[in-house]
């Protein structure tokens, strides 16, 4: 997935020490990152990490408390309206217009971008087809399923042919079929050169879609990089999970300096090497309840952000 090299060096988003406070709470604490043209960039993080706050600053919904933010080579404090003509936003909440039909939702939204009606009609037709909502044109929004609403929000975000697509949890609440369909669409958009910035709680989604990503927590960026590289650097290749580990096994792991996490009833061992350790463990310490699997982005995420529940 290391496709980064094929992108030009044009920077689409440049965030420098961007901060956002709500009273005493620092929701985003001096974060810096850049997104290049054609890239798919992910922001991951537990609930309350500051993802939505970051995104809201990007499209000018929330004024920044400090720092500098440049979108499409324009400082956000200078040319916000001009920037907004060129970006598409899918907010975390489905705020479709319940007073309008599916078709009208797109047409009315197109009007906000000064798109003339005939063109809006054509575009709506195309996008409803693109996201598999053609048969729902005359329906009211309330008659759609959650997944269809989400896809309509995505269609709406594409109405102005954006150069940058900003998606806050685009696939939350979708069934696996819809989710894969959305992934396919996003990949297709990216192959057309559209830059995408997204947040998600699905690690497989981030690993599948993102060229680069950051993991945030408490308003700060913990790590940044390509998904595979993050996995290699922070977890390794493989993971061994042991259910109900016995004391001998614990001692063995501790004394051999392996990376591990002890969850009480479960022990997670990050093995950088091959499966030799797994064979040793499963033969000598645990006959069953011992699993050997590939390391995933989820391991990185949990390792970096901890396992406690958030607010």
């Amino acid at each position, binding site marked *: 997935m290391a496709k980064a090299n094929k992108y030009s060096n044009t920077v689409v988003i440049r965030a420098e020490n961007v901060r956002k406070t*709500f009273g005493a709470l620092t929701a985003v604490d001096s974060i810096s990152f850049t997104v290049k043209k054609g890239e798919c960039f992910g922001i991951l993080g537990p609930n309350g990490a500051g993802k939505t706050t970051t995104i809201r600053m990007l499209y000018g919904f929330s004024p920044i408390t400090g720092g500098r933010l440049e979108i499409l080579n324009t400082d956000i404090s200078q040319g916000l309206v001009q920037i907004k003509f060129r970006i598409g936003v899918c907010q975390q909440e489905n705020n479709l217009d319940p007073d309008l039909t599916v078709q009208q939702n797109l047409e009315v939204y197109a009007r906000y971008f000064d798109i003339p009606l005939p063109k809006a009609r054509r575009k709506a037709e195309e996008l409803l087809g693109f996201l598999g909502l053609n048969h729902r044109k005359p329906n009211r929004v309330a008659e759609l399923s959650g997944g269809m609403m989400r896809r309509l929000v995505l269609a709406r975000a594409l109405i102005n042919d954006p150069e940058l697509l900003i998606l806050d949890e685009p696939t939350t609440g979708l069934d696996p079929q819809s989710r894969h369909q959305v992934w396919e669409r996003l990949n297709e958009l990216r192959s057309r050169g559209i830059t995408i910035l997204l947040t998600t709680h699905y690690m497989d989604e981030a690993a599948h879609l993102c060229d680069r990503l950051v993991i945030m927590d408490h308003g700060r960026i913990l790590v940044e990089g390509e998904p595979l590289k993050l996995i290699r650097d922070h977890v390794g290749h493989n993971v061994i999970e042991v259910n109900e580990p016995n004391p001998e096994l614990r001692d063995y792991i501790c004394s051999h300096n392996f990376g591990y996490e002890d969850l009480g009833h479960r022990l997670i061992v990050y093995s950088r090497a091959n499966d030799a350790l797994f064979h040793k463990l499963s033969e000598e310490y645990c006959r069953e309840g011992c699993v050997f699997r590939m390391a995933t982005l989820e391991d990185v995420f949990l390792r970096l952000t901890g396992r406690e529940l958030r607010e």
Partner: protein
Amino acid sequence: MRGLFSFHVSQRFLRVWQRNFTVYRKTWKINFLPPLLEPLFYLLAFGAGLSALVGKIQYHGAELSYVVFIAPALIAITIMYSAFFENTFSSFVRMYYQKTYDAMMATPLTLEEIVTGEIVWGATKSVFATVIMLVIISLFGLIYYPHGFLIIPLAFVGGLAFGSIGMFFTGIVPTIDIFNLPMFLFITPMFLFSGTFFPLENLPIWAQLIASLLPLTHLVNIIRSLSFGSLDVSLVWSTGYLLIFFMIFFPLAQHAMKKRLIK
């Protein structure tokens, strides 16, 4: 207070107006019904019912039948209610429950344009209702023309004033139930004490003075004069008074909405 009077509104605010008009057209039959039926109900109740009790009314030295007296006030009341309702309850639902403004703010529309579009839309609803009512009331021969045509642009001015006041409350009420407060403390007293159902001359002087501060009093005065076919300089003063309300509450509404929504 920074930026209280500094806002930039492009003509894109019309997009917000158009959005509301699109929705209005979908339910136009229902939207047409209240302004169509309301004057009929009132004229029946007051004309056939109460008139017998009240008899003739003394107004500015002339003797009028009660129906002639209240018909113009019905229009003024409708102008007030249409815009105030639209920019309180309806705007609040769009803002708070439907998140329509949130969606709009991800487009080139600015919050100032959204608020402006909503207020202009509220005034437009006043105009629509006024036109329908004018037709009905004119059928009874209660409006003098061509003076009566001036009531239409006045409906817009009145709608802007009452809509801005409504939008200001939308910016500050914590929940939708709280609208009952301005309704009860501001709108209902105006409905009753603005020279609507009885001449203000019947009130003690101090009450007349208070009444003369109410914007609805001025709207009633203008519309009544026009309906009777009289044009005088007080019309200019009263229209100006409504415009002053608009010019005070429009920036206040913008400011309150900004404080509420820009986080």
